[in-house]
């Protein structure tokens, strides 16, 4: 069993959910998070226009780029054999070729339990 943690653009959440639905993995946990990547936060990420002179003014006053950028964290627990398929789907939907598309992490999970029925292991997540 693996946990897929994908940190993606908030705008792309609907498309990602649709794509996962089509593959047959409708269960996800989504958390609004703040973060930054290797580029240390870039103001253009938000999709709103910030006046260039305002940005320049901020930079000259010693302010750096944005501290954090709003993102959405998706977490899915899936069986080992489904990981590649889901990762591919997430990448396909979220690629915009611009910085800030996000990262995907794959972590091992020891066990899962469905609270309603007490099922354990793979049957709890299917």
């Amino acid at each position, binding site marked *: 069993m*693996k946990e897929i943690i*994908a*940190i*993606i653009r908030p705008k792309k959440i609907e498309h990602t959910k649709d794509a996962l639905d089509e593959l047959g993995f409708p269960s996800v946990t989504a*958390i609004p*998070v*703040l*973060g*930054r*990547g*290797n*580029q*240390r936060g870039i103001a253009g990420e938000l999709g709103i226009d910030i006046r260039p002179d305002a940005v320049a003014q901020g930079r000259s006053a010693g302010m750096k780029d944005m*501290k*954090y950028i709003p*993102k959405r*964290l998706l977490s899915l627990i899936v069986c080992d054999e489904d990981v590649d398929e889901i*990762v591919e789907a*997430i*990448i396909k939907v*979220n*690629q*915009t*070729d*611009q*910085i*800030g*598309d*996000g*990262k*995907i*992490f*794959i*972590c*091992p999970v020891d066990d899962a339990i469905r609270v309603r029925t007490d099922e354990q292991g793979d049957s709890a997540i299917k």
Partner: protein
Amino acid sequence: MKMIRAIVRPEAADAVTEGLEEAGFFSLTKINVFGRGKQKGITVGATHYDELSKIMIMIVVEDPSVDQVIKLIKYKAYTGNYGDGKIFITNVEKAITVRTGEKGL
């Protein structure tokens, strides 16, 4: 690769992220969370606060950098009182950049 999840005081979060930035760890994710520890929240006068506001900082680093990051977080988030937080380290098998589809951080 390891994922480091540090639950720290909200007022210490910026100090931690700035410290990490100085050390060259720019990428991180910050989540507002609520929780309690061994002290079961705090009681101020007659009011009991069961869950306290904290910030979880999530950062994935290569194995050799883990100790350095932990040391930094410990140093920056330390006040010596109850509620300074906890750090958890878990294994990450794979990391993928969505834009390029490349493996690795």
